[in-house]
């Protein structure tokens, strides 16, 4: 069974076709890169898979279940969305504890391990509002992986990260793949992740075309 299937998916937003008859099948356990300029449609493709938008035509299937028909959101999913922050008055650890409280899948040990994996210190008492852009991005990555999800959807995951942090992210992605996770990465910084990808796609004007990796 494919991890993700997009069957003739189209979406129009404010009169602009952001996804145009996209067809795609992705096997489980791989890393898939979606590259393109800003506003090319790569983010909307990830959001369609995540169930955050409703497609106008076609169908999105995640692990055999149709999004917005069989399920509202893929049930075992880690998500990084560009420019969405967390609670400013809480520390990194408190933010993750709050989110982990919903599903109760990640233990305290998992939460602390996730923070360390992205290069954040669980003991850091600074509030989120005092974080740099890079630290916020790292925390977003930590919340995505802390519950060891089956599916990871990462939108611009290397935004704001310095070289050292990008190296950490690459290691994180490789570890998640080794664990068996299916990972979709949408970015315009393809040099950061292209060599990690099992398959790569160019997105432009809502169209998705496979390209060679490497």
């Amino acid at each position, binding site marked *: 069974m494919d991890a993700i299937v997009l069957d003739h998916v189209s979406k129009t*937003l404010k009169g602009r076709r952001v996804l145009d008859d996209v067809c795609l099948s992705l096997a489980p356990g791989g890393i898939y890169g979606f590259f393109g300029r800003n506003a090319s449609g790569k983010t*909307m493709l990830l*959001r369609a898979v*995540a*169930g*955050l*938008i*409703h497609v106008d035509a076609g169908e999105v299937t995640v692990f055999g279940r149709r999004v*917005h028909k069989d399920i*509202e*959101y*893929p*049930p075992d*999913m880690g*998500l990084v*969305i560009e*420019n*969405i*922050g*967390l*609670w400013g*008055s*809480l520390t990194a650890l*408190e933010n993750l*504890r*709050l*989110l982990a*409280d*919903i*599903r109760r899948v990640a233990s305290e040990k998992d939460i602390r391990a996730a923070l360390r994996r992205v290069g954040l210190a669980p003991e850091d008492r600074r509030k989120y509002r005092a974080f740099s852009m890079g630290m916020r991005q790292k925390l977003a990555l930590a*919340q995505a992986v802390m519950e060891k999800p089956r599916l990871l959807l990462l939108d611009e995951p290397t935004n704001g990260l310095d070289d050292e942090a990008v190296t950490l992210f690459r290691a994180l992605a490789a570890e998640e793949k080794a664990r068996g996770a299916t990972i979709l990465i949408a970015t315009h910084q393809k040099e950061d992740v292209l060599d990690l990808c099992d398959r790569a796609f160019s997105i432009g004007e809502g169209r998705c075309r496979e390209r060679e990796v490497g």
Partner: protein
Amino acid sequence: MARFARRDGGYFLRALLGIPLGALFAVFATGGNTLEEMLMYLLGGLMARQMPGAFGFALNLLPVLTALYITSGAVTDELSRFAVYMLPRQRGRASWLLGRFALAFFGSLLFYALLLITLALGGLLLGADHAGASGVAQISLALLLTAGLNIALFAVLLNFLKLYLGGALAFFLTWLAVTPGQIAASLLLGVAGGWPVKLFPSAQGILALHELPALARALPEAAAFALPGFTVAFSACYSLFAAVLLAALGARAIRKYDFTL
């Protein structure tokens, strides 16, 4: 859940700052002559008589709504900025939303009660005339359930609008929806001669009776009717029904919403 309670408690504590503001507005808007008038103003049954026209309208309910904007921040969070990280983690979204609305309801109720108590104590200190205040206080206590629900409804409406329209516009539209709503309720009760109070014992309805001079004599009967018993039971059922309805509508609204952000 303890962590959520702590976070929500933070919102509520910030909202409490609106209490002195609300009390000051009530004194200012009514002239501070009688405690009855001040209480009525806070319950939404009086417009700001000292300031006729648009400004008086603007002052009516503004402090309460402002504070509730913060009180219901717990719901706002889940419906806006953090929804993309919280919603996919929820299994039973309808029951979760029901919980959030219940929180907004009880938070609003508590806020309202504290506001009225503060004003009553403030009125004592100010030496305001207490004539008629006991009747209003009786109604206030008996109808807090529905008053809380009404305010929670406004708070939820505000949050949904915020999700779709942004904060400032949502706040303006909610206020616009509340004030004309009160006037419409008053007119309806005036036309109907007061009988809807017996079927729909809301604070707004009973206060509207008091607001219309021709029906002012109905107030003692309304106050007697509003004592605990049938009214409280009815209010509780009504609150439960409305909360379930709200949760269902909320879950549907979120399901249909595109998080294009």
